[in-house]
């Protein structure tokens, strides 16, 4: 895992560009897919980007009866093997954060896969609320919410 995907909600202005980028990156044939990232507004021109936390002990992986979900060791993302997935949608119901989605257009489950190592949302974010940075730099960030802290606190806040 050379790079870390980081969300800095303080910088989010809820412009929605990441959602568009994600939807088209996961679409095809002119049809967008469901966006794996979603902006929840917290004030005028302020948002919280909500996206898969790639949990270490992920509930989606635990419930999948056909072992279609597994971690891509190169990127750290949990990915769906669509060859194996049988659309039982247990993962959608089991994710405690609601980050496993059902894509009605493409009739499949959908989750953030970090675009296999080049998340398309990042370059489209005008304020740097989304970052994909080398792992060594991620640890020395001056941001108020240190990388991993929000993620781990969020994970700790599971219902």
């Amino acid at each position: 895992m050379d790079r870390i995907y980081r969300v800095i909600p303080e910088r989010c202005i809820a412009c929605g560009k990441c959602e568009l980028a994600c939807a088209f990156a996961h679409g095809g044939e002119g049809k967008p897919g469901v966006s794996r990232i979603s902006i929840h507004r917290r004030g005028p021109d302020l948002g919280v980007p909500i996206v898969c936390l790639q949990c270490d002990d992920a509930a989606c992986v635990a419930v999948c009866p056909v072992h279609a979900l597994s971690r891509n060791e190169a990127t750290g993302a949990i990915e769906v093997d669509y060859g194996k997935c049988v659309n039982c949608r247990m993962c959608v119901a089991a994710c405690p954060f609601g980050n496993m989605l059902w894509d009605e257009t493409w009739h499949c489950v959908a989750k953030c896969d970090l675009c296999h190592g080049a998340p398309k949302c990042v370059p489209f974010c005008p304020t740097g609320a989304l970052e994909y940075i080398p792992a060594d730099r991620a640890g020395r960030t001056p941001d108020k919410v240190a990388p991993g802290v929000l993620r781990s606190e969020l994970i700790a806040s599971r219902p």
Partner: protein
Amino acid sequence: MPRLVIDGKTVVAKEGTFLLQAAREAGIDIPTLCEHPAVEPYGGCRMCLVDVTRPEWDGWSKMVVSCLFPVEDGIIVSTKSERVMNTRRVVIDLLLARCPNTPLVQKMAAEYGIEKTSYVQNPEPTDCILCGLCTRVCDEMGTSAISSSSRGAGREIAPPFNEPPPDCIGCLACAEICPTGFIKYETSNSKRVIWNKEFEMLRCPTCGRGHITKAQAAWHDGKVPGRYFEQCDACKRKAQAAMAVTLMGGSQIR
């Protein structure tokens, strides 16, 4: 790593894989009707038949189903030999007689030059091709609520005694995997009906959406805490955003 030749192309396959997988990874298409990577190979549809030989067999070859034939070093595989094509033609022709109105079957038959079956058409056309995907996925889910019943020409897919299956949790995996849409179901926010069994939905306490059956949530309780299932995914995302704001010490989400 076994090296084999498929349709003239040298292929290096992974040890322990089946021929179908090796061929597909090499970009060689073999038709299938009962294969799905999520479930155990079955060998029922017989469409993935191929000819296998070895140089030392003096021209003798054997026909095998590629979905179940383990790759071997040195074999020479022909996926489109005349007898393979002829046998597939007989098989799909027979299936078309059983399922004359099923688009999936019609399409595959057309690929083998068959517009209309040359056999006696089923007086009661069905969309069930008896591929066994539904029963195998049900086994894979761990529920085994449905299975094939009866033998021979009377074979059908059914719950035990054709009654609402006691072990079914209403996950719809069978209906989802069915390649012809034969397995029907109804679902709403309050109830779901499949195999004549009615399920009560677990409704999201926040928005009221029924996103999963109660039986399904109960079945998976233990693998993950049962409370994970209570809210629907959309409401869980909202809660997650609210939590993030709280953690940031900011104002609440509107």
